[in-house]
């Protein structure tokens, strides 16, 4: 019988994030499907509040690795803590959210435990009495369903693939896990993030706006209008609170010393070497819709595009609607209709 461990960490505010709660749903579903018990393992500076928030999840035990050294996200201490949690639980299957913190350390933890890891899984079910994961390959160009013999099996769950459960609060009794002595040579200095009103990357937004290189190209008057482009894009974001993405070609322009849209960085890049966001709606503007970019749209449910080229990639079955029109004019009118 498998021994399932749900492994997670609280966010800075002490609560479990949405991705963590989605992974909990995945773990509970797996346990139910296998007829197995599961336990909870939490790591962080202080995890009692997080444990209490899911105390009624049905876990047989709550293991805790906590302390000042674990308040910050760092490979050496996180890996040691996760390893200790897995060993304390005797886990054969570990289900964890694919957060940046756990994505960094869990493959190494799997190695320490003599097991294997499958990351960014978008599905977790049971077939033939064994866990079955789905995950994407070749940058969202194909999907596989797979199982494995090796144990322990560490599975990280991609965001927005399971429904987070609520109303699981109560009072959890924590079993403290002995942590091995680790002398980290890494000091966490802090987080750099734009101010809330300047942040244009919004994973929680319902909508994604993608700006392509066409915004900085010469327009019908033979001139480029980057300031006007910036006004349309930022105006749209202000009105809709959408998240902003970009094509690789547009963010690369800044690296080549060209005058471009200063608020775009490689963090905004969507596509083969960029992000794969999971917004419900996506609007691509002045963007070519070629495959290396569009692979990043795999999980965008509703897609529309504005492009002057009726034969662009979006027209080839990659968007629901392609508006063959001047994005400068369209977005100006859209912003006017959206109002202030």
């Amino acid at each position, binding site marked *: 019988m498998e021994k399932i461990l749900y492994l997670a960490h609280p966010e800075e505010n002490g609560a479990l994030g949405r991705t963590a709660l989605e992974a909990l749903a995945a773990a509970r579903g797996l346990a139910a499907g296998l007829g197995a018990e599961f336990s909870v393992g939490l790591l962080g500076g202080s995890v009692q509040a997080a444990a209490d928030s899911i105390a009624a999840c049905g876990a047989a035990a709550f293991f805790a690795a906590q302390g000042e050294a674990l308040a910050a996200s760092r*490979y050496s201490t996180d890996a040691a803590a996760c390893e200790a949690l897995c060993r304390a639980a005797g886990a054969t299957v570990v289900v964890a959210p694919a957060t940046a913190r756990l994505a*960094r350390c869990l493959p*190494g933890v799997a190695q320490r435990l003599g097991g294997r*890891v499958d990351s960014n899984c978008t599905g977790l079910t049971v077939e033939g009495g064994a866990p079955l994961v789905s995950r994407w390959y070749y940058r969202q160009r*194909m999907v596989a369903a797979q199982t494995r013999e090796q144990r322990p099996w560490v599975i990280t769950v991609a965001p927005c693939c399971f429904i987070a459960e609520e109303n699981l609060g109560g009072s959890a009794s924590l079993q403290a896990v002995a942590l091995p002595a680790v002398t980290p040579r*890494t000091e966490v200095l802090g987080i750099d993030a734009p101010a809330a009103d300047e942040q244009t990357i919004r994973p929680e937004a319902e909508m994604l706006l993608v700006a392509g290189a066409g915004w900085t190209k010469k327009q019908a008057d033979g001139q480029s209008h980057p300031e006007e482009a910036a006004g349309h894009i930022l105006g749209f974001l202000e009105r809709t609170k959408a998240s902003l993405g970009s094509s690789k070609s547009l963010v690369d322009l800044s690296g080549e010393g060209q005058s471009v849209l200063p608020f775009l960085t490689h963090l905004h890049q969507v596509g083969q070497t960029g992000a794969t966001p999971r917004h419900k709606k996506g609007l691509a503007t002045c963007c070519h819709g070629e495959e290396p970019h569009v692979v990043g749209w795999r999980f965008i449910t509703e897609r529309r595009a504005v492009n002057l080229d009726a034969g662009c990639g979006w027209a080839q079955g990659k968007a629901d609607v392609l508006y063959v029109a001047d994005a400068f004019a369209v977005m100006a009118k859209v912003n006017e209709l959206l109002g202030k």
Partner: protein
Amino acid sequence: MSYHIVVCGSIVPDPLQTLEPVAGPGGPALKNEMMLPAVLDPWAAHALYEAANLAKAAPGSRVWLVSVGPKAKLQQVMMHVAQKVPFELVVMDGPAGGFVEAADTAAALAQAVEGIAGLEKDRLLLFGGWSSASRGTGATMQILGELLGVTEQFQGVDELRPADDGSFEVKERIEGGGYLRSRCAGAPAVLGWATGNLPEPPNNPQVGMQNMRLIMPALQKARPAAVGAAGVAYKAVELPGARRQTRIVKDAPVDDIAREIVEWIKG
């Protein structure tokens, strides 16, 4: 402070290629995989450019590119990569597709790294992509680090700033478009790069010729890599579902288009 920077990366199909899964003798594979045009994995390529940039700023540094892949295809890819930045190539001959285990690849890489003559582990920086455009697990570098006993690790790196005392600051991508800033006391360390901040270097034929003098012998003496997918059972490997039926709106007034978009946004 100088570094011994080992960049790990392999080949992936050109991004513009249409891929089709087929059942191979060892598990899933790509149709006509050996015929598909290939490139160096994009994130590994960024890691290589960052390595070269760091080596340039730290005299006495060396850069190796260690690759597990089919040597015939690696040779083709190296014709292009060799012109970008100076490096020494180390090759393990074996499959490099998405359906090969990260643990196997890491073990082969570890074997190759351990075999690098003159490598000084106290100056070692293990660079690679934080994920690959094939398997995409984001696991190989961490496993490699564990095999080599390197437990200062960073993933999603966009910036490394060395200090004179051998320490360096790192910026790693985290959720919501932010960065986690850390300071590491020094090598050895593992860094899985995202895109970094450097553009792709222009082709430099002189660098290319210099590199190829060592690349060809490296390819010829490549040892076989024991990599596969033992223990994994693939129940299905499929292409995504049917394409969307795109409605193309042409010759419509801007006002009408804008109204429709706003209705959709609000809907």
